[in-house]
């Protein structure tokens, strides 16, 4: 049984204008899915993630979580299970520890310090002094801290919006490994849907690819098959564009 179903999810470009940003996106997220969401800029990838996280309105269609329509869920309960991590990290004022404790303070849960420490070490932040002011961290450190803050929520589905865009290759690899382990080794069903523009990363972190173009989810399928034999002209063009970029910036 799938964790989450998208049923003909559609969104207008602007609230006023009746022009579609994307239409009729139908797809499932199942336990242990490592999905990458790729596509050109302006296709609405981030908007789709924000809609799934119920931070943005959908204009048509519906979403179900655990077989229950979104309207039957309290938004807070939904977001505890389906959590969005933004590309631009936002640090709360105060220390690193204060940021790591956010979830325990919000939901009146005990702070799992050992777990937080393990995550911090896994992404290369083990040496940081937790008393340090979080806003003084570098962009890459903030990005990793924001991810761990969301992992402390222990959601079922993580929606990851280019969360390694400010990271060096080593830190990027560490984050990828942590998330792969998070999905496969958890005691409860987990999955992630990850937006990336990095083709190597997309291959490394996914077992499924969703490709957005022409205002819809043009292709979805198994990762190796997609990268080796894309079905659509748009996917081929997109891939050749990425390869050109890789040659230009090896």
């Amino acid at each position, binding site marked *: 049984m799938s964790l989450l179903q998208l049923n003909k999810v559609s969104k207008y470009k602007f*609230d006023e204008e009746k022009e579609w940003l994307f239409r009729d996106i139908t797809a499932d997220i199942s336990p242990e899915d490592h999905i990458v969401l790729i596509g050109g800029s302006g296709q609405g990838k981030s908007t789709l993630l924000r809609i799934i*996280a*119920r*931070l*943005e*309105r959908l204009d048509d269609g519906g979403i179900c979580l655990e077989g229950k329509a979104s309207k039957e869920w309290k*938004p*807070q*309960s939904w*977001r*505890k299970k389906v*959590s*969005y*991590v*933004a590309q*631009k990290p*936002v640090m*709360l*004022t105060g220390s690193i520890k204060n940021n790591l404790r*956010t*979830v325990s303070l*919000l*939901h009146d849960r005990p702070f799992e310090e050992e777990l937080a420490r393990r995550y911090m070490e896994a992404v290369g932040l083990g040496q940081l002094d937790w008393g340090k002011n979080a806003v003084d961290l570098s962009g890459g450190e903030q990005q990793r801290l*924001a991810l761990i*803050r*969301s992992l402390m*929520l222990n959601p079922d589905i993580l929606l990851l919006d280019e969360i390694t865009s400010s990271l060096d290759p080593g830190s990027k690899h560490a984050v990828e490994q942590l998330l792969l382990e998070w999905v496969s080794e958890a005691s409860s069903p987990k999955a992630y849907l990850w937006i990336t523009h990095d083709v190597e990363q997309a291959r490394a972190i996914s077992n499924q690819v969703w490709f957005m173009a022409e205002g819809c989810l043009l292709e979805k399928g198994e990762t190796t098959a997609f990268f080796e034999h894309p079905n659509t002209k748009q996917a081929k063009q997109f891939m050749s564009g990425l390869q050109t970029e890789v040659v230009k910036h090896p």
Partner: protein
Amino acid sequence: MSNMALICTLCFVAVAAFISMKQKLGLEKEILIGTLRSAVQLLFIGYVLHFVFGTSNPFFILIIITGMILVAAWNAGAKAKHISGIRLRIAITLACTEGVTMGILLGLGIIAPTPQYIIPVSGIIIGSSMIVCGLLLNRMKREMETARGEIEMLLALGATEKQAIHSSLRRSVRASMIPTIDGMKTVGLVQLPGMMTGMIVAGADPIEAVRYQILIMFVLASSAAMTAMILSLISYKLWFTKDARLLPVLPAD
């Protein structure tokens, strides 16, 4: 003040209009409308008060205070007119602040229960609270842009609307109270407040005028705090949709 003296006060308006014309500020029409409105409104309220003081009927006092609250709520609500239901929340806030403050003033016998005291003091309380409401809403509008990332991050972690907006509300409450508190620090040194000045001009003993002004300053501090707290508590949900999403940012005016 004689009628002639009252007419002579128009020379101050002429100065403002002259400067506007000379500097091509284009404010002549606004100055004319402002002059007419303030004269008509003040004369009207003067005659109304004259009538009410004569009758001493509590029903008229209630009508005047209700009118003040409605006008103040309408005016302060213009700062966030896209927020549906904000004017009602402001009216409730002003009514609560006025009710509690006036209850304490009358209950402790600080002012006499006569229209001559109740109406002017109510005007001061409601007018000052209206400004606090406007400042709070202005700051909240800014917070909806500057702290949007923080609020949405907390929502994404499963926070309730109240948890997500708490820091923004606290900053807005603070910002709305600061002018009142600053006013308390400089009153008498920088400005002589209107009520005190009015009493002195009308022939009251300056010490007696100061005692009333102290009362007013303390009342303003408490009503600013009450107004900011009540309005923030009863209006924070209006910044969200029913399914706990932040309202979209409106284009700048």
